[in-house]
């Protein structure tokens, strides 16, 4: 069983989404995703002010083995990329749902409801299906 906090929403492409008190959202990759990638050695996050569409590649996580795109789960404007990850990409491995967040985003009007995000239980089903 993967570590899947119940208060987060998820995507089929292994991102998680946390709604912050100011109604912006924080986005990262799941514990399953960081585990599959292995030791991360390079993370590129978007600059604040960039406007992204839903499902647009907007960050890159690279392990020793492979590079992987991270997709915007929701359309909106980037408010911050995690500045710590340039020097310490391994934070994503150590704390994928906390200090290892990748970016924060202000959703476009209606974008949060339009996004088909998954609950922890639904994302678990995605992982179970992938395992077969």
């Amino acid at each position, binding site marked *: 069983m993967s570590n899947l906090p119940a208060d987060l929403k998820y995507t089929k492409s292994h991102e998680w989404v946390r709604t912050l008190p100011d109604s912006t959202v924080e986005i990262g990759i799941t514990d399953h995703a960081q585990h599959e990638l292995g*030791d991360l*050695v*390079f993370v590129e996050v978007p600059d604040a002010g960039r406007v992204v569409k839903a499902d647009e590649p907007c960050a890159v996580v690279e392990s*020793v*083995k492979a*590079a992987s795109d991270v997709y915007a789960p929701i359309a909106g404007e980037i408010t911050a990329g995690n500045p710590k990850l340039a020097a310490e990409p391994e934070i994503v491995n150590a704390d994928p749902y906390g200090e290892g967040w990748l970016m924060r985003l202000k959703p476009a009007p209606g974008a949060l409801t339009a996004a088909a995000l998954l609950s922890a239980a639904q994302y678990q089903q995605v992982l179970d299906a992938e395992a077969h």
Partner: protein
Amino acid sequence: MARQTPLFGLHQELGARMVDFGGWNMPVQYSSQIGEHHAVRRAAGVFDVSHMGILDLRGAGVRALLQRLLANDVAKLTTPGKALYSCMLNEQGGVLDDLIVYFLNDYWYRMVVNAGTRDRDLAWIREHAGAFTVEVNERSDLAMLAVQGPEARAKAAQLLPPADGAAALALDGFVGRELGQWFVARTGYTGEDGFEIMMPASDAVAAWRGLNSLGVASCGLGARDTLRLEAGMNLYGHDMDESTQPYESNLGWTVALAPSERRFIGRAALEPIARAGSQRKLVGLLLEERGVLRAHQKVTAAPAGEGEITSGTYSPTLERSIALARLPSAAAGQVQVEVRGKLLPARVVRLPFVRAGRSLLTQTKDIP
């Protein structure tokens, strides 16, 4: 259906992540690829390399056969147990495989070939062996463990009876010998000291567990790849193959053109290249910015021209990205690599990047 080594069950028990490699189901990592890499640079690690092919060639014509099949000259091997690294070429001079051959006696040589090419190699060697009355046996009954790192030999020797352990520790570099039912060789693919040990398949699990209990870390193919790349060693099928020749693969030093009367396969194609110089070369690249170099990324080396990365990775020892790249022969100094749509600066550097745990990028101009 992927093949399995005698250690497959143990890899699973140890929690390894398994991948297909050259048709074999092999461990890519156990816990952390970078942790396994550092274990080998700083202490000792063990790799399952039983997927590689061990071929015994026996008969009165075995030396003549190998002098025909290999670009390097087995006549250089005069003391029993001594090993030679060589390419096996096709008539066009393309690399069919790179391998190690051990001289055991005048009637017996042992060859270790790559996993992905072992079936093709065996067919090629047998096709040529008939004329030399040489018998070729694939030793599928043996497992092979590579124990590598500064502490590797001392740990591995403890698996042997005391007299054999002492004999193993007395081996010179690139020499192997039979010790009981094991064949212990002071060879490797990591840039560290260590042994490669061939043993009956039934001994492999106990040997692995014994090494673990002595503090030798289980290491997967992931760490093996970053270690060999830091050591500037080629990987067959990535850095060279049938479509490339040794001189453009940083392997010219393994081609023995003397004596001129030795007519090895591929010689006729290589001679003009050796005279005129190869148009391309395989070099080391060091990325000067953050990011990771990967195989097939385009390299621009103005004004010499363009080339391509053949292997790229993140170097855990140097904490920056390194690569091997095939470039026009005139390329030098600063180049640009296209990484995910951006042009990043990289520098052509001398190989290897790392040897015996230490960075060889000692000149300040090599350190960005």
